[in-house]
């Protein structure tokens, strides 16, 4: 890997090397925090750091400027080591206004760095944030390394010579985030070129008239960098070396983007047309948004009138032979549940992507949670078994999306893919796979008339065959009423119903033969197991590894197939004296483990709309594992 070119660095001060750094950008939703974070992320990624990010949006589109609910945040941890979370508490907070400072201050450790835009601490600003005194002056920042920089003023000065069109003029000031970014690039020895190029590219579509906008952003970035370099404000400059990666080509990827790519890949791998039926809902909408770009792949997106139409159209498409997917969040799953049952009964392949968010009801729509597991398992009338998968990191969303499609098709069944708001928006480096290295998904539509029966089953998978409209001689009828075994006619017989209920359940259980066994990570003599699922992976792994490093007899395992469970799960659980189950809910996976294996596992539960901190878990493990 080529080292970053140390451009623009004139007179180096004290140079230090760090293993990892966590930075949080915070400002008004209009301040471009997500963009700023995105640039820092890409630059760090290209630089070869391992990293993990956590964007935290307000629920409002534009809450009142400067207000507490309007604060938008973006946290990134970047490192020369393998890391798995965006970091517990930031080393650096960049706060663009009093509200941002106020909301985030409690997360900052003593002596950490706080950079504020001192220009936005006027009386009005303070009032909007509900500050009675000015935190820049009242001693609030005493225990921190606080840098009060008039970022707005400096930015405006740097851009003085750039002429904006009349109507764009108020936007000039908005480049202050690039100024701040420039400062941080200097402190952490990041090159400017990735961001410079991206700015250029983002505006490529626009006309020449927008040239000043591009120029302004680039100028502000450079000015910030030069400012940090020139002033003696920052006594040290830091390097965070590239992490050790497997060889390959990498990019940075967020969970929802990975799901979208995974679905397109599954379409190619199966040779099936991708049909995505969805109704916009936070935090799932970006999958629909991404896929509607993919017309060149023949992807058909259907922005339905509601969730019920989204899923039923997908079921129709599946009947017609498409790779049918429907995506939503918790409230949407609730609405789709009646229809999902139709797919269970008709045994049609269907992938249901659920990007979980805080609930119940509308709940905390922009926050993360893991509380739809039992809804996915049981949220339908009667005995209605489906397969359930959960990716554990943004990049893994790609492979798990493909896996969901594979299982849906092979077992002719609905499959839930349970991601969450944290994975959806969080990003991490992803080693891009060669398409040729991805496993083909075998699809065989039935064409022979001889011996055809709609509910004839494969002996291994127990799944029925897919016979799609357009195939001569296989005309048949399916529906939501109970079907007779093999023939698939409407059937009200008592024994047949009992048999069919059990065979539908058995079919889902068969999947356990077809998925990897659960791996345990930890010492042979571990007595405590920490077991999780979904997006808690990073925090659990980091916490357990920390404890292991200090000699605690603790192991960890992460379940990606939640229904059916990996075949060896029961055996694994039985090996430990203590089983801890951290979840961002009140104990749903815990509940399944207890019921199925009668194991007296203990929940570690947090329902705060945000991920676990590593330190929280370490604390619990230390207490429990001794």
């Amino acid at each position: 890997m080529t080292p970053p070119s140390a451009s623009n660095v004139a007179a180096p001060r004290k140079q230090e090397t760090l293993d990892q750094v966590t930075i949080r950008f915070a400002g008004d939703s209009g301040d471009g925090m997500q963009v700023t974070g995105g640039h820092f992320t890409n630059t760090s990624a290209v630089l070869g750091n391992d990293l993990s990010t956590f964007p935290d949006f307000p629920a409002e589109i534009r809450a009142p400027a400067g207000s507490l609910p309007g604060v938008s945040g973006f946290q990134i941890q970047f490192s020369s080591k393998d890391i798995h979370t965006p970091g517990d508490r930031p080393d650096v907070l960049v706060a663009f206004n009093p509200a941002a400072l106020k909301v985030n201050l409690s997360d900052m450790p003593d002596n950490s760095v706080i950079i504020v835009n001192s220009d936005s601490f006027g009386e009005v600003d303070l009032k909007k944030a509900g500050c009675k005194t000015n935190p820049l002056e009242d001693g609030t920042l005493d225990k921190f390394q606080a840098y009060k920089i008039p970022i707005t003023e400096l930015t405006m000065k740097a851009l003085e010579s750039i002429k904006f069109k009349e109507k764009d003029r108020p936007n000039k000031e908005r480049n202050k985030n690039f100024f701040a970014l420039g400062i941080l690039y200097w402190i952490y020895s990041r090159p400017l070129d990735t961001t410079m190029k991206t700015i250029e590219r983002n505006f490529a579509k626009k006309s020449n008239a927008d040239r000043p906008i591009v120029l302004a952003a680039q100028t502000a970035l450079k000015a910030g960098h030069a400012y940090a370099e020139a002033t003696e404000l920052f006594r040290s400059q830091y390097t965070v070396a590239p992490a050790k990666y497997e060889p390959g080509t990498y990019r940075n990827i967020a969970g929802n983007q990975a799901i979208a790519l995974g679905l397109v890949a599954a379409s190619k791998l199966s040779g099936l047309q991708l049909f995505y039926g969805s109704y916009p809902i936070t935090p799932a909408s970006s999958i629909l948004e991404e896929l509607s770009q993919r017309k060149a792949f023949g992807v058909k997106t259907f922005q339905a009138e509601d969730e019920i139409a989204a899923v039923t159209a997908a079921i129709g498409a599946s009947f017609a032979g498409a790779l049918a997917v429907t995506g939503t969040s918790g409230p949407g799953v609730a609405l789709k549940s009646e229809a999902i049952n139709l797919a269970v009964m008709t045994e049609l392949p269907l992938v249901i992507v659920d990007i979980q968010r805080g609930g119940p009801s509308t709940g905390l729509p922009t926050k993360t949670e893991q509380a739809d597991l039992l809804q996915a398992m049981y949220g339908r009338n009667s005995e209605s078994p489906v397969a359930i998968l959960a990716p554990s990191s943004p990049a893994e969303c790609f492979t798990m999306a493909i896996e969901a499609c594979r299982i849906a098709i092979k077992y002719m069944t609905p499959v839930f893919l349970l991601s969450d708001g944290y994975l959806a928006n969080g990003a991490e480096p992803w080693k891009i796979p060669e398409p040729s290295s991805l496993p083909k998904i075998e699809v065989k539509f039935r064409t022979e008339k001889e011996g055809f029966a709609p509910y004839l089953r494969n002996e291994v998978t127990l799944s029925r065959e897919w016979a799609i409209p357009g195939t001569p001689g296989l005309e048949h009828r399916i529906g939501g009423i109970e079907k007779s075994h093999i023939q698939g006619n409407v059937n009200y017989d008592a024994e047949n119903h009992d048999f069919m209920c059990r065979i539908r359940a058995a079919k889902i259980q068969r999947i356990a033969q077809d998925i990897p066994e659960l791996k345990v990570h930890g010492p042979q003599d571990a007595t405590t197991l920490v077991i999780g699922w979904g997006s808690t992976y990073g925090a659990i792994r980091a916490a357990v590894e920390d404890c292991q490093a200090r000699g605690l007899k603790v192991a960890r395992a992460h379940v990606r197939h939640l229904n059916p469970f990996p075949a060896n799960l029961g055996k694994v659980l039985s090996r430990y004296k203590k089983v801890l189950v951290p979840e961002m809910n009140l104990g749903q996976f815990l509940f399944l483990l207890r019921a199925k294996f009668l194991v007296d596992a203990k929940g570690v539960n947090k329902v705060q709309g945000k991920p676990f901190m590593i330190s929280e878990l370490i604390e619990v493990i230390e207490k429990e594992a001794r």
Partner: protein
Amino acid sequence: MVAPSQPQTSPQPPRKYTKIDFQTDQEVRWCPGCGDYAILNVAQQVFAQLGFPKEKMVMVSGIGCSSRFPYYVNTYGFHTIHGRAPAVATGVKLANPELQVWVATGDGDALSIGGNHFMHALRRNIDIKILLFNNRIYGLTKGQYSPTSVLGTINDKTAPFGTVDQPLNPISLSLASEATFVARSVDVYAKRLMDILKKAAEHKGSAFIEIYQNCNIYNDKAFDDFTDRPFRDDRNVMLEHGKPLIFAQGKKGIRLNGLKPEVVTLGENGITEKDLIVHDEHNPSLAYLLSRLNHPNFPEPIGVFRNDRMPSLDERLENQIADVKKAKGEGDLRKLLFAGDMWEVK
């Protein structure tokens, strides 16, 4: 078994079918005397006459007596869940535009629980044909009133003191939902129904056909007032494109007084055919106005209210995909994955 492939598009000569080709081995389970039989009979005949390959035909339905329809037609069939047939059908058609997709539904299925999908399927002009069996009652659940039940009807089951809900007018509603083909017929008007079903099949885009259907068990004779043979001619006006609105064996007609339609007697007060409304299938506002005419104040209009050719959703989508592919080339997975800011680790 074969691997999946794109549907073939080469045009084929019409197949030779008889009605029997569209019958299934399933016992028909409607009450004896139910109007559904007549509709099924006509539909099977029409399907045979169309000569469209039956393996490319799909019948989709919701739940209700009427929604058992697919079981009795020997094509691909999907008896889905209550109210969702138009959405399922939309998915079927979008996934494979080569298929001819029909929806069989009831007044409860389409207009009560399924009202939203009904409206949105129509406004998108997805190329599906919706047959709404309107018996003004929930048949399958044993006779509760429906959103088309006449206001004030005493319904033994759920409105013992008379309904208090103003009913919906399916024709008005479908027109306001931008449907491009809208028609009405009656279960026992076999010939008319046949003509209309054929026109609907030929129409590219959403077609909506309301069929007055007698439920002899729970709402017997709901339409007899104007469909019974002795009154039929006097109490129906048959809509024919380009023709004036005449009924009662040519004795009466309908004209506009300002924007208010009125029944007039030809020959009286010097009124001639020229004074009458001339039906125009291409004028949605006229169609709407006609949809407001109802027995007993007017003869009940039967026939095609609107028939306009507009691009259908499936056409629009296929064209858009084709355009994008033409402009950008067929999607390349490798290019899609290897994109954005990348870096190399050696």
